């Protein structure tokens, strides 16, 4: 039985425009699941519904067999970490962390030892007497983490906890959050709009779009095999083009790519695609390579732009299928703007998606 069960949750701020549409998700005990999506996709709404700050129109939230749906937020056993940290500015670090324990009427002695332990876990034992304003952003976020976990909640919710930090600190903090979460074995929902963050921290990722789930899966799976065009786009498949399906054989289909057909994986909501159906083909910039001149296989095009990135050079190539971005090692052959090149596919990483109503060429 799942530890946290979100069952067909529907939330609308305005009538007939649900922000969340029959959202269901099961989270196992000790699991960290990310809700990933662009702003307005309903991920924060989901989180705030689980926390109890939003009363859903329909659906249920169940934690460890106990129905949370009608429970006010202060009676739910949930730890919440905010994007803005939301520390209490007038209280010291110690009293910030102790707040939840005091609300639970934990005896004073126990409060002292538990707060000390929590602060030690986030490496802030020396800062107990500071005020939040005297701490850096990263330290404040650690205090917020300690405050949310010291009450040993059944579920930990994190709402974009790293987006106010600068890039280097973000990587450090997300490792810290993951370490803490695994150490405590705490069931966690993690909201983010950053796919790299979601990939690196999660047991499973839920990609959301317009209040609905696009795909749920392990990070590796979602990264390699998006089920929908939206997920492919969000997961950094920067190149896409439409192509007519030539033929389908089991899990592979072929489409035309320059001189020769190419074979690749496919995903469809409508069963095996017929030949002639229109597919969206997706590939990442580093899943193709360039060769000089025109070749028999591959798609010919012209270099429009090249940008040096250090280890790699990014080329923008104009072809009859549109413009594609291709990353090449910077020590491989260089091409100038205007040069004729052939785009060679790494087809085992390409994917054809048929997720809109089936169209025919």
């Amino acid at each position: 039985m799942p530890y946290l069960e979100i069952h067909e949750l529907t939330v609308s701020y305005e009538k007939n425009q649900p922000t969340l549409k029959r959202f269901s998700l099961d989270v196992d005990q000790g699991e960290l699941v990310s809700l990933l999506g662009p702003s307005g996709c309903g991920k924060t709404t989901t989180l705030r519904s689980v926390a109890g700050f939003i009363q859903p129109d329909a659906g249920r939230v169940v934690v460890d067999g106990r129905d949370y749906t009608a429970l006010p937020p202060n009676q739910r056993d949930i730890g919440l970490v905010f994007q803005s940290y939301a520390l209490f500015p007038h209280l010291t670090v110690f009293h910030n962390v102790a707040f939840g324990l005091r609300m639970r009427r934990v005896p004073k002695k126990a409060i002292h030892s538990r707060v000390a332990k929590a602060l030690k876990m986030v490496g802030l034992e020396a800062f107990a007497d500071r005020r939040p304003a005297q701490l850096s952003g990263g330290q404040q976020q650690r205090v917020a983490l300690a405050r949310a976990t010291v009450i040993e909640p059944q579920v930990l919710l994190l709402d974009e906890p790293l987006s106010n930090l600068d890039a280097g600190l973000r990587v450090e903090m997300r490792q810290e959050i993951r370490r803490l979460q695994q150490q405590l074995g705490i069931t966690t929902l993690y909201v983010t709009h950053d796919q790299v963050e979601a990939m690196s921290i999660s047991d499973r990722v839920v990609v959301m779009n317009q209040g609905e789930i696009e795909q749920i899966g392990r990070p590796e799976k979602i990264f390699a095999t998006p089920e929908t065009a939206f997920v492919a786009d969000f997961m950094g498949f920067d190149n896409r083009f439409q192509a007519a399906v030539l033929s389908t054989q089991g899990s592979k289909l072929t489409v035309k790519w320059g001189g020769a057909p190419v074979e690749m994986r496919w995903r469809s909501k409508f069963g095996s695609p017929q030949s002639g159906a229109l597919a969206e083909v997706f590939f990442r910039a580093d899943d193709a390579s360039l060769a000089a001149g025109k070749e028999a296989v591959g798609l010919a095009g012209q270099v429009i732009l090249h940008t040096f990135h250090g280890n790699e050079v990014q080329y923008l190539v104009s072809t009859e299928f549109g413009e594609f971005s291709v990353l090449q090692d910077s020590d491989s052959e260089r091409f100038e703007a205007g040069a004729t090149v052939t785009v060679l596919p790494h087809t085992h990483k390409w994917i054809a998606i048929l997720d809109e109503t089936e169209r025919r060429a």
Partner: protein
Amino acid sequence: MVSRWMYVSLVILYGFLLGPFVIIFMASFGENATMAFPPQGFTLDWFANVFETSQFIDSFWISLQLALLSTLVSLIMGMPVAYALTRYQFAAAGIVETVFSAPILVPGLVIGFAMLNFFVLLGDMSVFTGLFIGHTAILFPYSVRVISASLRNLDPFVEDAAVSLGANRLRGFLLVVLPNMQAGIAAAFVLGFITSFNNVPVSLFLSGPGVTTLPVSMLSYLEYYFDPTIAALSTLLVIFTVVLVQAAERLLGLSQFV
């Protein structure tokens, strides 16, 4: 770099700002029976006279009570308004804010005159009640603004944080929001108190027989006498106000809200 002209204009500016006070201050020690500058001789008699004139003593107490009471009530009324304006988004927010700012924008004389007419229409009302209502009305927008400023500096999510940690809404407000409003409330109190204590136009209309505020009784005293008593009283009031504001600034950092 500070040029010579900037320096000169600064001196002129300060001359105009502080000059009148210097003259009043010096005149209050003069021996002549009419105010004169430069003053002749030195005496503290006029200060003594301030405390012997019952008109001043009575109106001082009225002004003090009035300022304390109307400031307090305007704060109590202003707090929920400020809270609503900063924490909730609602359609009429703009209108509400404009209406509540009106007493700042409308000339005091107009407010005083309008209130006088209004209270006469209402019928029997003690003079003090009229003054109290009038002052509360003009202080209210200051309370709302200053408290709003202190609330805007506070992350709205701290309340949710308190609630998620087990506090109910009321405890969350009392334990987390209120302590962080303290400085704003104190600043609003000082500002309101001084505004009420120094107000002339509204008090002028709403004062009545035997019940008048200190500034109004100073005005009426001036109509009959031109001795340095008023200068002495003004000197005392300036000292009183400066001490109050400085104390508030030192203790609370008043200037960050006003």
